[in-house]
C-alpha cells in the first residue's frame, strides 16, 4: 500500500462516515433535523456542497475552470447571504431573533447547495459530454444547469417555508435573496466559459460594466425593436 493510496482510502472512508452517520450534519440537514446545528456548520456544508456543483459546472471547459468555478460557487452563495442578511432579518425581526434568522437562512442555503451537490455528478457528466463550441450543446447545458438550480432552489424554499411558517415572509426572503444573487452571479462570471478560455478567474473590470438587470433590459429591448 502506497502512502497516496492510504490517504485516498482515509478520505473516502471519512466521506462515507460523514454521509452515513446518523449524527453527521449532512444527514441532519437532509432530513430536516438541522434545527440544533450551529449556523457556521451549516454554512460550511453549503460551501462544500456548492463547491462540488461549481466543479461540475466548470468541467464543460475543464482545466483551471473546474477549480475557478468550484471556488466561485461557494463565494456566490455565501456572499449573497452576507450582503442580503440584514434586509432579510429586518423583515423577520418581529418573529425571530437574529440568531434564528441566520440559522433559518443558512439552512435554506445549505439545503439548496446540498441538492446541487447531489446533482453534481450528473451535471459534471453532462458538461463533459457536451460538444465543444457548439450552440445546440451549449444551450442544452445551460438548460440542464438552470433546471438543476431551479430544483435546488425549490428544495431550499420548501425548507425555508417550513422554518419561517409564513408564506409572505418566505416569498419576500426569496425575492430579496434572488435579487442580490442575480447580480452576484453576474459579477462572478464566467461560470461555464463558452469561449473555452480557462484563464479568467474573476474579470472584475469587465463585469463591473453594467449589471444583470440592465442586460436583461437590453435583451428585451433588442427583442422588440
Amino acid at each position: 500500500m502506497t502512502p497516496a493510496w492510504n490517504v485516498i482510502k482515509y478520505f473516502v472512508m471519512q466521506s462515507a462516515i460523514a454521509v452515513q452517520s446518523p449524527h453527521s450534519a449532512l444527514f441532519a440537514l437532509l432530513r430536516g433535523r438541522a434545527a440544533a446545528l450551529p449556523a457556521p456548520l451549516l454554512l460550511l456544508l453549503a460551501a462544500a456542497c456548492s463547491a462540488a456543483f461549481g466543479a461540475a459546472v466548470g468541467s464543460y471547459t475543464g482545466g483551471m475552470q473546474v477549480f475557478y468555478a468550484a471556488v466561485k460557487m461557494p463565494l456566490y452563495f455565501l456572499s449573497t447571504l452576507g450582503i442580503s442578511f440584514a434586509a432579510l432579518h429586518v423583515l423577520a425581526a418581529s418573529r425571530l431573533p437574529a440568531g434564528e434568522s441566520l440559522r433559518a437562512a443558512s439552512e435554506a442555503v445549505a439545503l439548496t447547495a446540498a441538492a446541487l451537490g447531489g446533482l453534481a455528478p450528473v451535471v459534471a457528466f453532462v458538461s463533459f459530454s457536451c460538444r465543444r463550441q457548439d450552440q445546440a450543446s451549449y444551450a442544452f447545458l445551460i438548460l440542464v444547469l438552470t433546471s438543476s438550480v431551479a430544483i435546488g432552489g425549490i428544495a431550499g424554499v420548501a425548507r425555508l417555508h417550513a422554518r419561517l411558517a409564513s408564506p409572505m415572509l418566505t416569498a419576500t426572503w426569496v425575492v430579496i435573496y434572488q435579487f442580490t444573487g442575480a447580480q452576484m452571479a453576474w459579477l462572478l462570471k464566467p461560470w461555464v466559459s463558452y469561449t473555452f478560455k480557462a484563464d479568467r478567474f474573476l474579470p472584475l473590470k469587465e463585469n463591473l460594466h453594467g449589471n444583470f438587470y440592465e442586460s436583461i433590459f437590453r435583451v428585451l429591448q433588442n427583442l422588440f425593436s
Partner: protein
Amino acid sequence: MAEITVPFASPAPQHFDSDVLRGGLLSRLAVVGALLRFRSTIGSDIARERNLGDYFCSLFLATLLFTAGYGAVLGMYQPGIQILYAGLKLPVVVLGTAMLCIPTFYVFNSILGSTLNFRQTVSLVFLMTAAVATILAAFAPIAWFFTVSAGTEGFLIVLHFAVFAIALLYAERLLAAIRELLHAITGGTSVPRTFLTLWLVLVSAVGTQMAWNFRPFLSEGPFVTGTRSLCVEALRPAIDGVESKR
C-alpha cells in the same frame, strides 16, 4: 395415491439466507436467485441492515458478469476485437451510470423524508443494476441468435433498445416491490413512488448518454471515439431526412 418422484430432481430452496453470500465467488451469485424468488428476504435484510456489504459485493459481481456477457453478444455483430471491447464497455456503462446517480438518489430521497441511510441506498441502487443485468443475461441468447442469423444494424439497434427497456421496467417493478416491503417493515417512507419513477428516468437518460460516449457497440471502431457530443445527435440524420423530404 402413490407419490410420484422425479429422479435426480433436487427440491427448490424454500428460503434464502444471505449468510450464504459469504461462501465464495460462486456463492455470491446466489443473490440472483434471491432477486428472482425471495424479494421479501432481500427487503427484510436491507431494512435491518443485515449483510449489506455482502449484498453489495454480490450484486456488483452479478452486474459485472452479466453485463459483460451481454456486451460480448453486442460485439458479436462485428466479430473480433469488438467482442472484447463491447464486453468491457457495457459493465462500465451500467455500473458507471449507477454510481453517477447514487448521490442524486440519496440526497433527494433524504430531502423527501426517506429513512434509508447511505448503505441502504447503495444496496437499492445495485439491486437495480443487478436486476437489469439479470434480464440482459436472460435475453442474451435471443439477442445472440438474431445477431448471428438475421441482424441488420437497424434491426439490432431496435432489438437491443427493447431488451434494455424491458430490463429497466423489470428493475422498476422490483424496486417498487422492495419499496413496499421496506415501508411495511420500517413503518417509515423508504422511497416516494413518484420520485422513484423520476429517478429512473434520470438513470435512463444518463445511461443512454454514457452508452453514446462509449460508442461504437455494434459497428467496428476504436474502444472509444473520444469525441464529445450529446446522444440526441444520433437522431440528427433522421431529422435531416424528414426535413429534406419536406
